[in-house]
């Protein structure tokens, strides 16, 4: 299951990292070296391994009150405006309107 140039480019796109062509071969080589070292896991028998149940999820009461900000968002955001956070528009967003971010 060797990593290819195409894998590195695909994964870099998923991770939103620019990947100049001249960096690809070295990364492919390094990743294959690292993943070769991982191959030993294939030989481990894990058939009887159960779920990890170290702790149960604690729950918080539904009471308004959050960790306060020592400085407001508008003071540290790169591009605040009218209370909003502005970002460059996605170029494929040719049409306008509000979208639901939820997938």
């Amino acid at each position, binding site marked *: 299951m060797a990593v290819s140039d195409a894998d590195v480019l695909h994964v870099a*796109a*998923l991770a*939103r990292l620019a990947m100049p062509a001249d960096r690809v071969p070295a990364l492919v080589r390094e990743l294959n070296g690292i993943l070769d070292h991982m191959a030993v896991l294939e030989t481990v028998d894990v058939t009887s391994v159960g*779920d990890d*149940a*170290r*702790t*149960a*999820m*604690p*729950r*918080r*009461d*539904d*009471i*308004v*009150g*959050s*960790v*306060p*900000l020592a400085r407001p*968002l508008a003071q540290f955001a790169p*591009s605040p*405006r*009218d*209370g*909003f*956070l*502005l*970002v*460059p*528009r*996605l170029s*494929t*967003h*040719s*049409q*306008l*309107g*509000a*979208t*639901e*971010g*939820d*997938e």
Partner: protein
Amino acid sequence: MSTAMETDVTAGFEMVVGLEVHVQLKTQTKAFCGCSTNFGAPPNQNTCPVCLALPGALPVLNARAVELALRVALGFGFTVNARSIFARKNYFYPDLPKGYQISQHDTPIAEHGRLDIGLLINGEPRVIGITRAHMEEDAGKSIHDRYESATAVDLNRSGVPLVEIVSEPEMRSPEEAGAYLRTLKQILLYLDISDCNMEEGSLRVDANVSARPFGQVRLGTKCEVKNMNSFSGVERALAAEFRRQCGVLVAGGSVQQQTLLWDGAKGEIRPARSKEGSSDYRYFPEPDLPPLLISDAELARVRETLPELPAARRARYAAMKLSEYDVQELTADPATGPFFEAVLALHADAKSVANWVNGEVRAVVNERDTAWDAMSLEPARLAALIDLVRDGVVSSSAAKKIFAQLLVSTDTPRAIAERDGLVQVRDDNALAGWVDEVLAEHPVEAARYAAGEKKLVGLLVGLVMKKSQGRADPKLVNQLLSSRATG
């Protein structure tokens, strides 16, 4: 060929629909932080280190969100998983601060529910399987049309708790999808877990649609349709998308799996803008949150708080010999029933109480767009008014006038009736006087009536009522006139 194009392209094809419903839970605070969930705050006001995804911040689960999710699970007959797992769904979008959404993936809180959608197919009730209900957090809002070449992000909604209810692909028509959604929403409102307001986004529906030739077992390629803002919009969008897919298939093409947006104003389907690289979400268990454990004891506690659901209430009302219409109306929303029953407790005739509640009272509720319990009408006063009608103290038409006064006055119905001269006159002498006068003023009709033309009684009663300015008891007038005809 041209005639073939004009025939219904959908002929011979079966529609297959599965629905994903996102329900915003009615909590005070977000799913994983103490920020308020109130709607309409200034942009980014309801944010904190956690929902802004500041470096180092960590999520802590809202107990109330779990409780409401369990209500959903019990309300739809789901199996609750004693141990469920939150996962990270990884994708980049400006309104997703962490770069991942916390959602349940492999092991949701509830699985295997079912919903009787209230339709009969070949005499059998239509029951739709519900695959799962899982907890997740909402994303923020991206507004693309407010600023030149920039998208504005508001994270007030980021982290608001949702339950996503995913159906099996078991619906076969827009009508079934509509019935599923209406039934689902009704139960959700009874469970009191969400406002279920599609316009404000507290209930959102995505539909998966495919088409296949009748008789084919294998499912066709599905497309996802989003952006519907009403149930009728969902029905129209499904019909439009089904027609589109059938057109592709009839023309010998194949349907490409894609996400589409419904444009309700134009009544059109169009492809969604692509979210580049978003197809591989790289789900993995959220390491910041241990497994969510639900004990039998907790489930039992939630079950005890579960309100009566629509089906049980309908059965109870039907047993009161109310009409199908009355039962449907009284149970349409969760609040009508309690008001109806509060009146019924003081006035035993279910039918007349139902008439009032489904008639005059509902009209006021709808007109004022108010809640039943927020209306300035105590059930006891309505019961007293219905008593007055039953006892013949006031007429039905006078009762309607009194009802209008009940909403603006604190007087009792009887006091209003007396004040406004709406008490029916039942005094024999007074009634006899009016009858005599009417007969004297209309000698021709009086003579024909006396001669046995009984159908004139209606006319004469009306005249007496008019003369009495509506105060005469029409029943007694009727009796009096009958005695004159025979006397």
